């Protein structure tokens, strides 16, 4: 099947985007022009505000009798502590405890709103439909676009356009609210995938072009492509589904125990709970770590990780960190070699590149948790 077009397809091309197939869509990998290029876009987002089109992601709305109970039978989330207007990270697991997707769950009045990855969204819908009772309605909001505005100046740029019952600055990290932008309904969450302060903005698809143009007219804002989205999230230590997370990996191995909410770690009762509870009690053989490499040559996904001459792991994503000026990577390594400071090496084209296990995030998060 040829890639489909997203609502902002023509708009991206007007901004000088280089489009590539991704998750079944044509998407901007980077832009051309004065502020374009992965490194320039990366640095712009870390210092100003970057506008990302993430409309490929799946926006799902769940409702119905017994909603919380039904969702808790699938996800390892504790919905009794998820208040109205709050958003939380969760995981879609298979029966064996492998990761099918990672997602955000938000409490709307009478609904739960989910944002799932683009490449997995139709499988996710199938999985949820299979495991949720018929009383639960699942709406795929495919008539909605999703924008992310990320960076230290995102709040200034967005505040000029978003109006609502309360001020945008009252939103703290992982909270959301209903706002209006240029007369269109916008659900705005203070969240993102860059490690910076920022927002994710759900809007009707037919208003996407008007709103994107409005935001881009602000001096702090430039459009940012998928290339910089990847380097930003890597610096922020955030795993990418399909690379650092997969059905072969459990969330405990991935270091995502916070995605298994506290009550569920003892109670279980969600898909994959047997393995997850066993691993919480007994640990795992391997774990996800950050690596900082010497020199300038990056180690990419698939590179083998060694301690001396013994293979102890595999890189799942890696690249060059524009902020730090060195190559960084995420890898799964044996627990015995996973401590911060452990001296390992990555094999790239038959060369062994010295690598040190490093705490993540590589670049500190700057989320807004309140003043």
């Amino acid at each position, binding site marked *: 099947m040829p890639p489909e077009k997203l609502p902002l397809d023509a708009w991206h091309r007007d901004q000088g985007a280089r489009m590539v197939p991704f998750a079944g869509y044509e998407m901007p990998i980077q832009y051309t022009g004065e502020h374009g290029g*992965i*490194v320039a876009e990366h640095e712009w987002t870390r210092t100003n505000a970057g506008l990302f089109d993430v409309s490929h992601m799946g926006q799902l709305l769940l409702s119905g009798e017994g909603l919380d109970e039904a969702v808790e039978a699938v996800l390892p989330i504790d919905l009794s502590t998820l208040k109205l207007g709050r958003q939380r990270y969760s995981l879609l697991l298979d029966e064996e405890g492998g990761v099918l997707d990672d997602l955000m769950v938000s409490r709307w009045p009478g609904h739960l709103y989910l944002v799932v990855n683009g490449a997995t969204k139709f499988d996710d819908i199938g999985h949820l439909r299979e495991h949720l009772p018929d009383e639960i309605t699942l709406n795929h909001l495919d008539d909605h676009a999703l924008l992310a505005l990320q960076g230290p100046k995102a709040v200034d740029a967005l505040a000029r356009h978003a109006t609502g019952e309360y001020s945008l600055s009252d939103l703290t990290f992982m909270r959301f609210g209903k706002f209006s932008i240029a007369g269109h309904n916008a659900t705005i969450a203070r969240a993102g995938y860059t490690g910076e302060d920022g927002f994710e903005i759900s809007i009707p698809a037919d208003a996407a072009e008007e709103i994107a143009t409005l935001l881009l007219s602000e001096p702090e804002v430039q459009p940012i492509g998928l*290339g910089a989205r990847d380097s930003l999230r890597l610096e922020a230590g955030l795993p990418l589904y399909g690379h650092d997370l997969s059905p072969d990996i459990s969330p405990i191995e991935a270091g995502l125990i916070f995605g298994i909410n506290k009550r569920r770690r003892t109670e279980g009762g969600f898909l994959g709970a047997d393995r997850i509870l066993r691993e919480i009690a007994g640990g795992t053989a391997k774990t996800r770590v950050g690596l900082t490499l010497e020199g300038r040559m*990056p180690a990419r996904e698939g590179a083998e990780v060694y301690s001396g001459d013994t293979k102890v792991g595999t890189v799942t994503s890696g690249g060059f960190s524009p902020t730090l000026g060195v*190559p960084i990577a995420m890898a799964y390594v044996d627990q015995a070699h996973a401590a911060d400071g452990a001296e390992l090496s990555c094999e790239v084209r038959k060369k062994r590149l010295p690598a040190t296990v490093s705490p993540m995030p590589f670049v500190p998060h700057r989320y807004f948790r309140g003043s």
Partner: protein
Amino acid sequence: MPRYFTDEHEWIDVEGESATVGITDYAQEQLGDIVFVELPDVGAMLDKGGDAAVVESVKAASDVYAPITGEVTEGNSALEDEPALVNSSPEEEGWFFRMTIGDRDELEGLMDDKAYKAFVDNL
């Protein structure tokens, strides 16, 4: 001095018995920000069309192929400290390596400036 081009977007300058190899402006534009260039060792024997160097951009690693057969005589050491020269000056300061010309007949199959421009315009 004549400059030739390959359909893999390498350029090659021929001066007497020596050739200088780099990648074209079109190639660097496609690759984006270059963070590392892995050059062949001096003395390495290269086969036409075989792997010669690797260019690492922020996003991905890409192979650079030998435009002709020959022996590597020099690598551009300036790229060690400043790989971005490949972006800023791909067809001059950002050259990759120099090599001997093993078989002059191989030059016949390469494009000249005009043919390469037409080739790129059709991509």
